[in-house]
């Protein structure tokens, strides 16, 4: 970690390529303790945090859901449009002592956990490509 960084995480190999990640804990309504999880950053996803359906259920996010009227539509890069399921939760970045509030999305068939642009809007990040590190400044 560089001197001016609050925290940093090595890229994670996905499909033979290093992918920038952030280490975080999602605090749902059940408030159960869980270890820090490394979640890939996806600047193509406009939301806050996308979780796989199974993880969404494990965290008890069905106990903090938005009314169905407020579930947003999502559009994939191929133009498919469908309804997201959405809940409110707190996200902690333990290494940096940061706690954020935001919307957690999932959808039927989703297996990916992704950090989106809305969460990134709150952070100062440096992607240090040569060292394969995501640094929180």
């Amino acid at each position, binding site marked *: 970690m560089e001197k001016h960084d609050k925290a940093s995480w090595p890229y994670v190999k996905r499909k033979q390529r290093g992918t920038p990640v952030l280490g975080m804990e999602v605090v749902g309504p059940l408030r159960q303790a869980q270890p820090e999880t490394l979640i890939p950053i996806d600047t193509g996803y406009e939301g806050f945090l996308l979780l796989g359906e199974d993880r969404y259920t494990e965290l008890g996010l069905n106990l903090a859901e938005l009314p*169905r009227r407020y579930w947003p539509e999502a559009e994939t890069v191929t133009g498919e449009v469908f*309804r997201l399921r959405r809940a409110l939760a707190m996200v902690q970045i333990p290494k940096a002592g940061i706690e954020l509030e935001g919307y957690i999305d999932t959808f039927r068939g989703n297996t990916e956990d992704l950090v989106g642009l809305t969460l990134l809007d709150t952070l100062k990040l440096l992607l240090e490509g040569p060292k394969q590190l995501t640094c929180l400044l």
Partner: protein
Amino acid sequence: MIKASLPKDLEEAFRRRAMERYGFSKGAVSKALEAAVSLWLRYDYEPQGEEEANNKAFESMRTELESRHPGMYAVIAGGQLVSVYRSLAEALPAGVRHSHRLVFKIGERPAKVRLGWRSTIKPLGPT
């Protein structure tokens, strides 16, 4: 094998779009039907039990909540309003008594969300 009938104008429009999308081949309509059904299955979740009751309760009190408590966090469980809170930290913790709860910031409305290339969708299983 599913057999069904559609209104004539809808069937014609569907066949026309299927041919445009998949070509003038024998399987074009079947392919288009499969895509349409997959999309429909993914589009929405069917509310059940407490979830349905909570959403009905929300709809019945939405206007009043928006006029009386804008910007506050509301919790609906067991088909009724539990309380409104100043912060999410206060509203979030839940006991195990409920199978579903609504927690939301009153008056906040969602925008359409674009998903990136990394989002992958596994084939749909039984619902």
